[in-house]
């Protein structure tokens, strides 16, 4: 006996199969292919390519960039989301637009902007050169470009949630004597922790995997300024396909590990 708002059983099956099919085709198969290609000739070549000094340097650089970019975006994103959701101030709309900016701009353009500003021929170039500070084609440039493209993740996850939750709990805290910091720590933060975790993980995944913007500001110096995605491209271009897939597999593994960590934290929480 079918309820009025239920669809026919056959339709349900079709939709489920279609969803599973799409997921398998676009998500599972490529992932499986990466690992399959990497291990095509067994563990030996994989171990060798991962212990290659340039590969290790790429892994370290990727982890370092993520370790800097993610906390910066965490703090920045939370601050921006809090300001937008809980307060009215002139320029609030503008801030919301700016937060969306990295999403609408091509990553390559983002990288190019940094070259235009910090490069030797750029606005700040001569000033930086005088002081011997290297921003583009070095770690700071890579970190800045990564921060730019991953900034929205935390903010965008939090803003709708915080807007939905409204201000009354914070107002109650205010009447009870809480100042801004305590209000944030004891009232706002606990209410958003799962969304925050989700945003941080998205930010982390993108920070580790960003290619376009980093490629423009990197300089591609082997062993120095290549992140893992860049290194994968280099290996591929040198016909070292097994090595390329091995490093790509490692990158995928890092992503899977962070997802697993998130699932575990959610279960425990």
């Amino acid at each position, binding site marked *: 006996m079918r309820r009025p708002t239920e669809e026919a059983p056959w339709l349900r099956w079709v939709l489920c199969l279609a969803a599973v099919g799409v997921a398998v085709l676009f998500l599972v198969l490529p992932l499986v292919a990466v690992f399959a290609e990497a291990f095509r000739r067994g563990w030996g070549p994989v171990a060798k390519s991962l212990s290659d000094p340039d590969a290790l340097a790429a892994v370290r650089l990727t982890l370092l960039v993520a370790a800097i970019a993610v906390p910066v975006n965490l703090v920045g994103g939370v601050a921006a989301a809090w300001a937008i959701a809980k307060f009215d101030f002139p320029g609030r709309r503008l801030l919301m637009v700016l937060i969306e900016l990295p999403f609408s701009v091509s990553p390559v353009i983002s990288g190019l902007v940094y070259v235009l500003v910090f490069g030797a021929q750029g606005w700040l170039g001569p000033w930086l050169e005088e002081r011997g500070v*290297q*921003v583009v*084609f070095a*770690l*700071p440039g890579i970190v800045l470009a990564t921060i730019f493209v991953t900034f929205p993740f935390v903010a965008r996850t939090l803003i709708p949630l915080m807007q939905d939750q409204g201000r009354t709990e914070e107002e109650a805290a205010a009447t009870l004597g809480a100042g801004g910091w305590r209000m944030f720590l004891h009232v706002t933060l606990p209410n958003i922790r799962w969304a925050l975790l989700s945003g941080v993980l998205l930010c982390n995944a993108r920070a580790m995997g960003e290619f376009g913007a980093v490629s423009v500001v990197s300089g*591609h110096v082997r062993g120095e*300024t290549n992140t893992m995605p860049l290194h994968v491209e280099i290996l591929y271009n*040198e*016909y070292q396909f097994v090595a390329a897939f091995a490093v790509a597999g490692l990158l995928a593994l890092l992503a899977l590990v962070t997802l697993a960590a998130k699932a575990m934290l959610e279960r425990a929480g």
Partner: protein
Amino acid sequence: MSVRLARRSLPGLALGLAAPARAQGGGPLLNVSYDPTREFYRAYNGAFAQWWREKSGQAVRVNTSHGGSGRQARAVIDGLAADVVTLALAYDIDAIAERGLIAPDWQRRLPENSAPYTSTILFLVRKGNPKGIREWGDLVKPGVGVITPNPKTSGGARWNYLAAWAWARRNAGGDAGAAEYLGRLLRNVPVLDAGARGSTTSFAQRAQGDVLLAWENEAHLAFAEFGEGQFEIVVPSLSILAEPPVAVVDRNVDRRGTRAVAEAYLEHLYSPEAQALAAKHHYRPRDRAALAAARATFPDLPLVTVDAEFGGWAEAQRAHFADGGSFDRLYQPGR
């Protein structure tokens, strides 16, 4: 290749990359090179490090960066701290010199116009040459897919283009005929990669197109990587003498105190050891002995030069590759 990553800790890596320039000599050398030289410089860097240690007792580490020649020149201008540049054509190094980073007379500082090895452009086709491509004229036959990189970013692509133009000028009715020929050629190009290696990958790995216009060394490398059974090398009736030059980036080596090592790095490219290595990687060495020894791998064919044929790189750039040049006029993607 001597590598000291074991000593580098994360903070060291971070500091090392963002630190102010060191006053005295030391620190790794950066060679900013063009796309196809990856394998060659990996081998050469190791050989050079060993030679330098024996000669001076110092350890040196050489880092490399590869990409399309034009793009790499652009990066050096924008602040990539190269100690030496080893690019595809003199014009790209001139662009850097124009910004004051390299002395204007750089090309005369090393023998043979600062080009320690030369190369040329050949065709790479599929085994059996099913489309029967033997000559430049065959490239404009309907249904033939030609793979070449983008002349705006790739040095190799500019050599390709000029070689084609030189042939067409002789065989297709002067400059007017050459323009028409290039127009038809470009219409047969399905994709323009940014660098020579990208094109090789498109052709060899992704099986796009029927013929690859390639650096000689790229053609041989594709052979080696994919098994000789897959491709054939076709030598056209005419090609261009490509002289990829090298130079020390004066501003950077003086600031970093690495001039001695950098100059030695480039000079050593002319040594018999390095020339043999170049030949091994399918670059035509300047050294006569090395060239004779490797005669078999380097087919003889008439070669034109940029200076004689096109009046030098500045002129060629202006006429063909600058904004509004012949490439811009003739390349209409999607048509």
